[in-house]
């Protein structure tokens, strides 16, 4: 603890750092859950929802931890179901609509690659609970990366149709990747307190893991654009409100309900 900053502000930054990671898992888990019953083949239906289950499991652990850090009595359910749009801190990438199967695979790979780059430095976190969650999640994310990489290669280096679809998914999604690596004061506070890495330091690991996959998939990276999404600041795309309306409808219609 530094004497120049009140403990409350440090704790709020710490909570928001954890919340960003939690919300990324939660919102991508919700999106992948939409594939349930709609997968192109039964095996993929099961695979995508298994990935969703892992992500929601990670989100539950992380949200519970964020609630304890905040110390205002909010549990995982209160944080998932009773926050409004601007309080969610996930990157915009994970809230975008699923699109077709190619777009869903590539988006999930992009985020899983980011998580994989994050979990390793988090093992050294001074926050022991966060380090334990990272240790657990890292094993799961590895399988997600492997599975989605295979689909990206198979479709990208596939037929004319599948290649065109994967390339258009890349063109659409790639501008949203920038946000994953833009640090701000919350990252700065986490680095200073030894809680976790700043996100800009994750880019090299992400590039090293994913660029060879995109190359093997014969995909071409689109050029840089000035566009930058802002979900991690709580300013979301037009898609987020609809996602939350569906995700939160039951909990909001029946406050405090248990079964």
């Amino acid at each position, binding site marked *: 603890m530094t004497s120049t900053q009140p403990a409350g502000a440090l704790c709020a930054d710490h909570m928001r750092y954890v919340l960003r990671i939690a919300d990324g898992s939660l919102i991508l888990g919700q999106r992948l859950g939409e594939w349930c019953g709609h997968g192109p083949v039964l*095996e*993929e239906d*099961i*695979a995508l929802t*298994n*990935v969703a*289950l*892992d*992500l*929601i*499991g*990670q989100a*539950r*652990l992380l949200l519970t931890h964020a609630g304890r850090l905040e110390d205002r009595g909010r549990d995982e359910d209160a944080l998932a179901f009773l926050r409004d749009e601007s309080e969610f801190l996930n990157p915009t990438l994970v809230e975008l609509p699923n699109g077709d199967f190619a777009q869903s695979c590539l988006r999930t790979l992009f985020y899983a690659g980011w998580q994989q780059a994050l979990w*390793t430095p988090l093992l050294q976190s001074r926050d*022991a*609970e966060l*380090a*334990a*969650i990272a*240790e*657990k*999640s*890292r*094993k*799961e994310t*590895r*399988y997600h*990366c*492997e*599975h989605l*990489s295979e689909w990206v290669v198979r479709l990208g280096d596939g037929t004319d149709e599948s290649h065109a679809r994967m390339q258009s998914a890349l063109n659409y999604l790639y501008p949203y990747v920038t946000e994953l690596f833009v640090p701000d004061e919350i990252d700065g506070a986490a680095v200073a307190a030894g809680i976790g890495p700043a996100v800009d330091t994750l880019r090299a690991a992400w590039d090293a*893991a994913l660029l060879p996959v995109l190359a093997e998939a014969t995909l071409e990276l689109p050029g840089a654009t000035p566009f930058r999404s802002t979900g991690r600041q709580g300013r979301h795309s037009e898609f987020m409100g609809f996602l939350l309306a569906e995700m939160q409808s039951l909990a909001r219609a029946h406050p405090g309900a248990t079964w």
Partner: protein
Amino acid sequence: MSLTREEAWSALAAIPDPEIPAISITDLGIVREVACANGHVDVTVTPTYSGCPATEMIQRDIVRALQAAGADDVAVHLQLSPAWTTDWLSEDAKARLAAYGIAPPQTLAPDAARPVRFRPRIRCPRCGSTHSEQLSAFGATACKALYRCLACREPFEYFKPI
């Protein structure tokens, strides 16, 4: 009534895994610690996967089994680290998995930091052939992958190393 640590362990060893009843929760290696004092039992378990829906059911089963064995009250604690690995499955449990029709994890859990693109040939639990192919990395539960035996043509599940 007071329960000894050994009695508590044997009560736990009789609890089947809800998804794979051929093995118990102690075979699975998820029970990390048991402490008994004056009828109070503390059990520390570790989840297999973050989102495994069986975790909560297992916690309820533990409370029920220990109370039936004579514990006055039971507290179940969740411990994430060290993270669960299939390396903790006993050899005996692996044999029972195979007899139940699920191919046990054939390799040690690989280093989680490294990508896995290597596919070992998995032995079919029905005919024993290693001439098999993966259908999907994710099966009916998060811990299993779907395979097909190319010798006997039967599909089977593989308990994947993690």
